[in-house]
Each structure stands twice: as structure tokens, then as C-alpha cells.
């Protein structure tokens, strides 16, 4: 019984570290790459910028949630 909380905590920490690593790479490679394009859109096409902004944040929300769910399943499968 005492092993379960330890395993759960370890799984969570592994997930967190993997996720943190992926996220850092994602921020510096993907998001930074978008900066200039978004700025140009903001300056010249506000309506397109608005929809692009919404699509990006919704898309990222779905993608990140999927990634965390998959990571958690992978880690639990390895542990079991």
C-alpha cells in the first residue's frame, strides 16, 4: 500500500521532467520561429491576426493535453 503513493509520485516526476524538456525545445524552436510572422500579421492584418491567435492557442491547448495524456500512459505502462 505504501509503495503506491511513491510510484505515483515518481511517475508524476518523470512525466513532469519529460514534459518540461519537450516544452523548452518547443518554445525555443517553434514559438520563437512564429514571432516575426505574427508581428507582421499584427501590424497589417488585425482580423487575420485575431483568428490566427485564437487558432494557435486552441491548437496548442489540444496538442499539449494530448501530449501529457500520452506521456502519462507511457510512463504507467512501463511501470506496470
Amino acid at each position, binding site marked *: 500500500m505504501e509503495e503506491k503513493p511513491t510510484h505515483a509520485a515518481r511517475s508524476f516526476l518523470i512525466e513532469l521532467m519529460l*514534459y518540461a524538456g519537450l516544452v523548452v525545445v518547443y518554445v525555443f524552436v517553434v514559438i520563437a520561429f512564429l514571432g516575426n510572422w505574427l508581428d507582421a500579421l499584427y501590424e497589417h492584418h*488585425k482580423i487575420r491576426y*485575431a483568428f490566427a491567435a*485564437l487558432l494557435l*492557442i486552441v491548437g*496548442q491547448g489540444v496538442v499539449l493535453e494530448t501530449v501529457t495524456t500520452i506521456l502519462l500512459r507511457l510512463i504507467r505502462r512501463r511501470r506496470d
Partner: protein
Amino acid sequence: MDFLVSQTHISPFYLMIIGFIIGIFGGFFGVGGSFLAGPALFAMGVPMNFVVGTDLAHIVGKSIVAAKKHRALGNVDLKLGFIMVIGTIAGVEVGAQGIEWLKHLGRANVDQVVGIAFVVVLISISAFVAWESWQTIKMQRDREREAEMSGIGVRTLGAKEDESAFEHISRKIHGIKLPPMIRLRVSGIERVSLWAILLVAFVGGVFSGFLGGGAGYIRMPSMVYLLGVPTHVAVGTDLFEIVISASYGTLTHAIKGNVDIMIALVMHTGAAIGAQIGAASTEYFRGPKIRLAFVPLPLIGAAIVIYSLLSGKHLK
């Protein structure tokens, strides 16, 4: 990292950590976390109009994660959520127009007026929730003591059941016969006027459009104390409703030039995992304890805004 749209320079690690902390609080309390996100961005030198719009954008992505989790837990009253969206969107537009009016008067005015409004709202909410939560916990303890003395057993509430020291207020509001009357099965409300729901949502929307974020710090207490929605359903429904109304808020503020989506995207990378942790934790706590734990958070946000306004300094 340079954020060209808002012309600010902020460490992406700072944004990710802030996002993570806000994600946990957001998933747990059912609020978007703007009581911390807004002050945190302002403290980094982001102009207030961008704080308002960017925070709205950030919580769209974050709330999708948390709302999905709460939906799976059965905490979302879809009917209530869709009705509230109508009122909230109207309120958001009114709030956004307020920001535009202040922008015409100059950036200093936006920062000062919105900053002061933020501080007043946050302190008021914190004080009220502290008082109400304490009243409810005291009421429960008195009842248990009386039951012990009389030897009669007291039915303890289940983890998802709730009570509030303000139930008499929500009962009075339920008694207002202003048709159309609505039944909210998931919330356990037999009937309530549609206009009461729309008014609560509209006021929340104004705060959202003017101060940024989802204004869950207004809407969630209003749902619990005024409409009588159980806390865990208020948490989940608020998150669900925020996804839609904050999407509208993002669009309208972005068109008005108040959203730096890069900041929102970076902050959200931390929030995504925090929200899952926060949402899962609501399984283990009852209403008054969740509300009491919420109390210090708006005060921390208020302190950050006060510091930034008075000192004129920004954290780098």
C-alpha cells in the same frame, strides 16, 4: 525573449513557471488565474491593455484542458454554461470598449485605472470569500457540536456535496418569478429566472473584458452564492463557459490590438500540465475548504499590482 507585438522582453522560463502555478490554481479553483497572471505580466512591464487581452487568450488554451477534465468528473452543467455564455459575451464587449476608451486617454491612464480597479476587486473578493467560508465552516462545526450533545448523528456531506452560509440569498433569488424560469438538473436547481443567470454572466463578462482573464473570481462566487450552484459544479461549469467567452474576448481584444499571442503561448505551455493536477485535486476537497484556500491568492495578485504601480519598477 523578445515579444515584438507588445514590445516587451521577458524570460520564457518565468512565463512557463507562472503558467504552471496558475494552471494548478485554475484547475483546482475553477478560475482562470488572472488574479495572478495579470499582475505577473504587469510586473514584467507588459502594458495593461496587453495584459488584459493576452491573459484572455492564455486562458482559452488552459481552460480547454481543465474543462475536459471536469466534464469527465461530471462537474459541468452544460445548460447553465451555454446560457451564461450569452451574458458573458455581451459583458466582455462592454469591458473591451472600456479599455479602448482608456487607450485614447494614454497608456498611463490604462495602467493606473485598470491597476487600481484590479486591486480593489481582488481585495474585495478575497475578503468576502474568507468571511463566507469561515461562516460556513463555523456553521458546520456548531451543528456537529449540537448533534454530539444531543446524541443524534449528523449526516456528513459527501466529497462533492456542498453548503454555504449564503444559501438564504440564493433561495431568495430562486424565488424571483421573472420568466422564463429555468431548471438546472446538474446543479440541483429546481427553478431560477433566466435573467438572474444572464445578469450574473454579464457582470462577470464586464470584469473579464476590462480586467482580463475569465473573471472566475467574480463568476464562481456569484454562481455559488447568488445562483446556489454547488461549488464543484460551479468550478467545472465556469471553466467550460470560459472556453467560449474567452475565445470571443480574445478575438475582440486582438482586433483592437491588445493581444500578444506569443506571451500567451509560452505561458500556456506551463499551464497545460498544472491544470490537470489542479482539476484532479478537487475530488478530495469539499466546498468551504476550496473557497477558504482560494482567499490568499487574489491578495498576492493585488500586492504585485500595488508594488508595480507605486514603484514604477518591473521585474526582469
